């Protein structure tokens, strides 16, 4: 009798432990399969030195983030290893210095036109900068005002004129960055930011493209119009801020009402003791 009791007690406790060990059911393992890499990356990522470097550089770029791979710029066949670099499949290789603007300009049309019309563009092939000079070729990141800096610009001339144009752009850039941050935060709450995101993207691009004319007077002239467009987006954000503030106040009211209801119920309960 005693022995049976002991066994029951012990097993009861052991099982109590094990049962609490995994309180919930649905198991969740592994990771989904990754998509196969294109042939360009399959080969070049294994190569040493300057043949393998572009892959690592590209992986940290905004192109990689948006699914723009090697063949988008260099042409060729991304699925057929044997003919990947065949001119018959449109392979262009690495462009010569003077062909760089046209190379990037196949997609970045607006910027190319502004650049070619500018002092920078007119100096192409005569010691002037190409796209790659400031933006690099594989590690291309989201453009910001930081690209206009002393180290980069003073390679060819004094930083003074670069500083002028950067100062002219500073205020507007600040507004853009602030709005971008706000939109990102609202997006995290399920707000439909698509319209605002597109609007901001268009304005931001128009503004950054402007730099490529390298014309301070033009920048100043266009800034007013651009800031006006930014203000429209800012107004939408302010309206959102206001409505969210109202929600918080409504929240405070209902929570207080509930606590008050709980209090009344409690007091009423006490009268029955």
């Amino acid at each position, binding site marked *: 009798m005693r022995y049976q009791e002991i066994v029951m007690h012990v097993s009861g406790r052991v099982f109590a432990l094990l049962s609490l060990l995994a309180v919930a059911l649905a198991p969740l393992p592994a990771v989904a399969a990754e998509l196969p890499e294109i042939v360009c990356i399959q080969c070049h990522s294994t190569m040493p030195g300057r043949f393998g470097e572009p892959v690592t550089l590209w992986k940290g770029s905004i192109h990689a983030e948006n699914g723009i791979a090697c063949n988008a710029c260099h042409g060729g066949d991304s699925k057929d290893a044997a003919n990947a670099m065949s001119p018959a499949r449109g392979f262009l290789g690495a462009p010569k210095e003077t062909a760089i603007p046209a190379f990037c300009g*196949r*997609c*970045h*049309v*607006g*910027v190319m*036109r502004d650049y070619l019309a500018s002092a920078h563009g007119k100096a192409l092939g005569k010691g002037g900068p190409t796209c790659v000079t400031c933006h690099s070729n594989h590690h291309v990141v989201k453009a910001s005002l930081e690209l206009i800096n002393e180290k980069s610009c003073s390679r060819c001339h004094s930083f003074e004129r670069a500083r002028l144009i950067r100062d002219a752009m500073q205020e507007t850039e600040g507004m853009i960055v602030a709005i971008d941050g706000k939109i990102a935060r609202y997006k995290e709450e399920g707000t439909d930011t698509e*319209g605002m*995101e*597109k*609007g*901001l*993207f*268009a304005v931001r*691009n*128009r503004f950054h*493209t402007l730099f490529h004319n390298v014309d301070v007077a033009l920048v100043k002239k266009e800034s007013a119009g651009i800031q006006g467009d930014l203000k*429209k987006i800012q107004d939408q954000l302010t309206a959102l801020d206001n409505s969210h503030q109202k929600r918080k106040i409504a929240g405070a009211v*209902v929570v207080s*009402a*509930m606590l*008050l*209801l709980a209090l*009344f*119920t409690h*007091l*009423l309960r006490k*009268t*029955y003791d």
Partner: protein
Amino acid sequence: MESSGRRTFLGVCLGGLAAAVAAAVTWPVYRYLAPRSTATTAAKVEIPEKDVPEGEAKFFEFNGASAVLVRKRGDGLIALSAVCTHLGCIVQWEKDQQYFLCPCHGGHYTAEGVVISGPPPKPLTKLPFTVANGVITVG
């Protein structure tokens, strides 16, 4: 009896506040269910026909975004949204080639807004319009 008096008072407080809360709950649910007024139509925009010669495009603002009217060679009038379906830049009309080009990433569209090449995933949205007495009314 003191207890009974308190009970009634508390009962009234409880009932009253509960009724107020119930009303406060009914309002949002009613608004949620009520049919939406279709008065969310945008203000119409009127443009004189002569502002859109053959082979040319006129850009204007419609419903808070950029839009364009194009008169193709062979006299076909079209109203489209000028917002590129890729990332939102405003497309440009290339008069020599009679197509739309997006300056941001080189998206090409026909005069009808159909994607020819480049990253745009969808065609440009068509806008409704009518023509009467030499005036084009979009919307």
